């Protein structure tokens, strides 16, 4: 078990061996951007390796399945597969949606954001190719993600009239309270 002493387990110690790899440099940042869909997939016909059949367009979901410590990462070849512009474009997109200054530079703020706890579902996916194949990779989504621009105008609530006032809420009797 994980070691703890307090009754509410609030002091539980996570084993150091089970720590997630931190995003520290351009390479790990590239893996992050690829895993969560910011870096568009590349046709791997010629780069297919036996050990990690990462993906191809028809029989495996678009999103990469990075094997921890796998020998072949996206930039397994000596020269990075991604020309700088693509990496910078992806980095800027991540910075934009994360509300960071859009610098295109792998700076500290971006590093911090990439290391935050997050959901494993990619932020950008090609919905059609994944869902059709009963994807074995996390769910879903086409390239358009819902951002602030789609916020609709809040319902403008008129002023109360009459003598009575809407009492916020006063749970009556034994109503269960959450």
């Amino acid at each position: 078990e994980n070691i703890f002493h307090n009754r509410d387990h609030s002091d539980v110690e996570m084993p150091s061996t089970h720590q997630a790899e931190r995003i520290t440099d351009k390479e790990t940042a590239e893996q992050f951007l690829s895993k969560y869909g910011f870096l568009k997939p590349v046709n791997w016909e010629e780069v297919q390796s036996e050990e990690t059949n990462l993906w191809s367009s028809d029989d495996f979901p678009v999103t990469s399945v990075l094997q921890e410590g796998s020998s072949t990462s996206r930039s397994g070849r000596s020269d990075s597969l991604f020309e700088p512009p693509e990496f910078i474009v992806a980095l800027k997109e991540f910075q934009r949606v994360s509300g960071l200054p859009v610098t295109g530079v792998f700076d500290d703020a971006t590093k911090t954001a990439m290391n935050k706890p997050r959901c494993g579902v990619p932020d950008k996916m090609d919905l059609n190719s994944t869902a059709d194949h009963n994807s074995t990779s996390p769910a879903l989504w086409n390239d358009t993600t819902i951002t602030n621009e789609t916020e609709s105008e809040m319902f403008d609530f008129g002023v109360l009239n009459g003598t009575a006032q809407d009492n916020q809420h006063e749970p009556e009797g034994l109503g269960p309270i959450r």
Partner: protein
Amino acid sequence: KKRDLAALVHGRRHRRDVMEMGHVAFSKTVLKWRLIGEGYSSQLSVDDQRYIFRLAFRMWSEVSPLEFLEDQSSPLEDIDIRLGFGTGRHLGCTQRFDGAGREFAHAWFLGDIHFDDDEHFTAPNTGNGISLLKVAVHEIGHVLGLPHIYRTGSIMQPSYLPQEATFELDWMDRRAIQHLYGGCKGHFSTVFDWIRKERTQYGEVVVRFNTYFMRDSWYWLYENRNNRTRYGDPVAVQVGWHGIPSGGVDAHVHVWTRNTDAVYFFKGTQYWRYDGENDQVFTMDPDTGHRYPRLISEGFSGVSGPIDTAFFDRRDSHIYFFRGTDVYKFDIRANRLAAGFPKKITEIFPAVIPGNHPKGNLDAAYFSYLHNSIFLLKGTSYWRVAGMRDRLRRLSLPYNALMPQREVDQQWFDICNVHASALRI
């Protein structure tokens, strides 16, 4: 081979085709879920884990037409949503977890949710760590078809934000899920404003009201200023209203004049007077000594139950009882039916637009203090009774004319059922 296996495993999933709708959603509204036995967390008791997931599913059910049922007995392939904890390579999943930090969970379309048990998940209001409730609500959102949403306040933001005191599904997240599954519609048994009179320290009497919607054996408090129901509703009628039939009522009437202040609930052929001070029905009427429940025909001669609905009109101090296509106008001062009644509803409440009228069999007649208007509800629609202001604007409008039909869920938002099994939370 892989695709066939996947199809076999996922083949029974009910889903609408992606291409047809541009997104994917379950095509049924009652969904079964289970925390799988080989996926228990080592950090929280199994009961805590199941309670948190039940609450997480309920939070989605409170804002969508979906209902969720925890099912621990059906064959696994009949379970729509399977949840489990694991670390590193886990539960036969193709995505391995990365240990403590960074990725804390992932979810599949219309399917399973896996939580990284290397993360320090905590129950609500206990210690710092990652709130399992918040993560569960997020991942369930994915399973139901929602993507990541980069909007402050959205539960679907990809990064985990330490939970403020409470978190709830806001207006935009509700619209997002209802975009996939539609809004919450349904008839109501009755709707009313409950009046509370309080005295301020200066001796003034202040009147407050709360709006309640009742449907069969459940009710919601509706918070007008927030355009939503109270978080955590619906609640069972018997929990909040003591002594009235637990299966629900037909009508609520608040007779409120200069010298009378009495609330009545009607069900079938009987009615009860309600004691607001002690929050229960009267067994004996403090003014008349009559015992409750009492026959409607005894208390309101000329009217016999069951009625469809009723309301008290403070303008003319009459109770209007509705039954089928008829309306009975009862004079509470003379304690008898007004002359010439019953009459047709269409006659007493004529349509502004010919033919645009509920005709009869109403569900609720609701005087709203907020809108200073009477609403007649039937099914998922309502008709507002034209008031003074309307008639000043359009002098031709007859008294009590019914404005055109509108949809209830466009005026009062997100009044959603939850599965009966979820009522005990």
